[in-house]
């Protein structure tokens, strides 16, 4: 009995020691736990560089990274924020972070943004233009480190062959589509299987027809979907859908699959984000035949706002090491750090003091965004998730059956009344 008990006691002791030491090691000042889903090669390399650099500058801090796969992260974030919060985690700006902020899971970092109490921070200078999407209830909840532009990617050679110059107005754009269609080329390619591509088109039509404020009010649920101004957006959309200017069968294609017709020269334009450039080039296009232009003006004189989804870093409210977490966020907001990271990412740094890669698409994007009136996050990041999913289903259905517009908008209105009540 005594021996058995002794072994048992020793075992229990050992477990106790292991447990407490585990607890200590994560609570130990100087360990920074970071949860990310940045497993794709470019983001991974960019962050590995940033982690190394941060540790060089702050030798007292040990960084512990938990990497999740991209899809799994969306589920995992809900669990780890409530049960075992890391110090720092990555997410997205706008309404996407709202549920977490509302549930009290995200730390208020307004002090970083106002540079109060932080010697090495300088966000008021380089980052103030990006403050708005990070603000909920007058406070800031994280910092953005990269974004990218949306716009129209097009085949330069197909445009020249058909005598089309880059359209800057809606009429020119529709005329270009007509010319291309006549020449047997699908004017605009799109793959709407996963729905969100349709929201890109809707957002731009809406931003150009009604402007940024309307976009924000609509995604905040302040405007009924049956409003005549929403109908006006669909009137413009009709001008593209009804003559068949979009790729056939887009509902069965993923966005990547819709790149093929453009690479093959069967389609000429794609309303897309800048991340698509890598895939275009993989398919064999180069800077000489792939071009980019800003989505043309519809309502003349309306200030041009752009879509620029922003990737962000946040601190969990349950973080154990908030001091180092804030130091890390300040580090990530620095111009030199963002410049270096975005070189690897192939995207645009948010800090206006950063320089951008020598790349025609990034340079065009940077110029466009620097002159932008405002930046929208994207329909599915500005609108709450439920509204976004129903909305994008509706957009897809409309693009296949434009005559069902009234029915679709009525259904969306019903959803709006439920979601925002």
């Amino acid at each position, binding site marked *: 009995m005594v021996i058995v008990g002794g072994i048992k006691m020793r075992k229990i002791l050992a477990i106790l020691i292991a447990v407490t030491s585990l607890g200590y090691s994560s609570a130990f000042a100087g360990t920074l736990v970071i949860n990310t889903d940045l497993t794709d090669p470019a983001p991974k390399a960019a962050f590995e560089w940033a982690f190394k650099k941060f540790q060089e500058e702050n030798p007292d801090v040990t960084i512990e990274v938990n990497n999740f796969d991209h899809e799994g992260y*969306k*589920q995992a974030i*809900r669990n780890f*924020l*409530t049960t075992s919060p890391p110090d720092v985690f990555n997410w997205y700006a706008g309404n996407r972070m709202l*549920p*977490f902020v*509302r*549930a009290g*899971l995200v730390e208020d970092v307004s002090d970083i943004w106002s540079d109060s109490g932080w010697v090495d921070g300088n966000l008021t200078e380089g980052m103030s233009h990006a403050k708005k999407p990070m603000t909920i209830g007058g406070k800031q909840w994280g910092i953005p480190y990269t974004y990218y532009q949306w716009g129209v990617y097009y085949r330069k050679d197909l445009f020249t062959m058909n005598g089309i110059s880059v359209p800057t107005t809606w009429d020119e754009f529709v005329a270009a589509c007509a010319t291309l269609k006549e020449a047997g080329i699908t004017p605009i390619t799109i793959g*709407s*299987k*996963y*729905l969100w591509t349709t929201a890109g088109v809707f957002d731009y039509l809406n931003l150009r027809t009604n402007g940024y404020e309307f976009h924000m009010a609509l995604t905040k649920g302040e405007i009924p979907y049956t409003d005549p101004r929403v109908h006006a957006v669909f009137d413009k959309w009709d001008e593209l859908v009804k003559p068949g200017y979009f790729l*056939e*069968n*887009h*509902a*069965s*294609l993923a966005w990547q*699959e819709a790149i*093929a017709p453009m690479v093959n020269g069967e389609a000429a334009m794609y309303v897309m984000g800048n991340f698509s450039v890598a895939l275009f080039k993989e398919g064999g296009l180069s800077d000489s035949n792939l071009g980019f232009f800003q989505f043309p003006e519809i309502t003349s004189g309306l200030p041009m706002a752009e879509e620029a989804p922003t990737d962000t870093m946040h601190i969990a409210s349950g973080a154990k090491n908030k001091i180092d977490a804030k130091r890390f966020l300040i580090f990530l907001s620095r111009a030199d750090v963002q410049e270096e990271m975005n070189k690897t990412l192939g995207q645009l740094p948010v800090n206006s003091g950063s320089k951008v890669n020598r790349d025609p698409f990034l340079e065009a994007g940077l110029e466009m965004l620097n002159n932008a009136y405002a930046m929208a996050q994207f329909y*599915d990041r500005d609108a709450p*998730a*439920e509204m*976004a*999913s129903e909305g994008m*289903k*509706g957009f*897809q*259905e409309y693009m*296949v059956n434009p005559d069902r517009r009234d029915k679709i908008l009525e*259904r969306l209105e019903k959803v709006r009344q*439920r979601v925002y009540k």
Partner: protein
Amino acid sequence: MPNSNQFTYRRSSWWKRNQQRLTPWIFLFPGLLLFLVYVIWPIFNSLYISLLQWDGLSPAIYVGISNYIELLDDEYFYISLMNNLKWLIFFMLAVPIGLGLAIFLNQTIFGIRLIKSLFFFPFVISQVVIGIIFSWFYNPRGVIGPFLDKIGLSNYAILADENFATYGIIFAGIYPQIAYCMILYLTGLNNLNTDQIEAGRMDGAKGLSLFKNIILPQLKPATFLAIVVTVIGSLRSFDMVAIMTQGGPYGSSNVLAYYMFETALSEYGYRMGYGSAIAAVLFTIMMFYILFFIYRMYQSEKKGL
């Protein structure tokens, strides 16, 4: 001393008397415990969640049956329900086709084992792989594109057609299911009573009448099993839908299982209460079927079949 003797005697006798009754329960206990924790409790828990409005993060709000009331007015719910019905009906085709194949393959010629295993192959491939391969097939730029061109259906993508997307998925789903039914019938055919067939032949039965009156009744257990697994297969059509269309285009190929997942757990969902209400409806439908199945089993056990 006699007293204590008596006492020990009684004690062992209580165990001896009840041993026969207790032993099965002791063996069943771990299984029952797991069943309670992982099956029974979640059922009641999700029935409870279906009465809440809850996003999984914020505190849940009790809303009574309003999730169910919303379901009644939800277009997508009816579409999903109808699609479940289509799955149930058309998936049944796997049973006769499987039977036909089994009879066709039930020969003794050289290499028939290899051919049988080739026919069984679809069942070995994962559903996910089948889903991906079929969506490549259906792609108008894919394998069947040129054939469709010839019959005047150029550029037709069945998975993008709201009226036929479901049938496209069912067709892909039925492909491994046929193999499964076939193997069930092949084992059944192996165990046929040759005496009865001989006797039948002597009585002048041949061809279709022999098949209908002698062989099919003997295959009844196989048929029963094939129908059961096919119904279950059609009700869990989740994976095919998730891989091939994600319920699209615009929800027209959704089924209840996927719709539940979409509302409760997908990127844009997290309406736990509403998702649970859908789950409750699906559970009720399954319950009818399961009760019928248990009743049939009970009846045939009684008959000693």
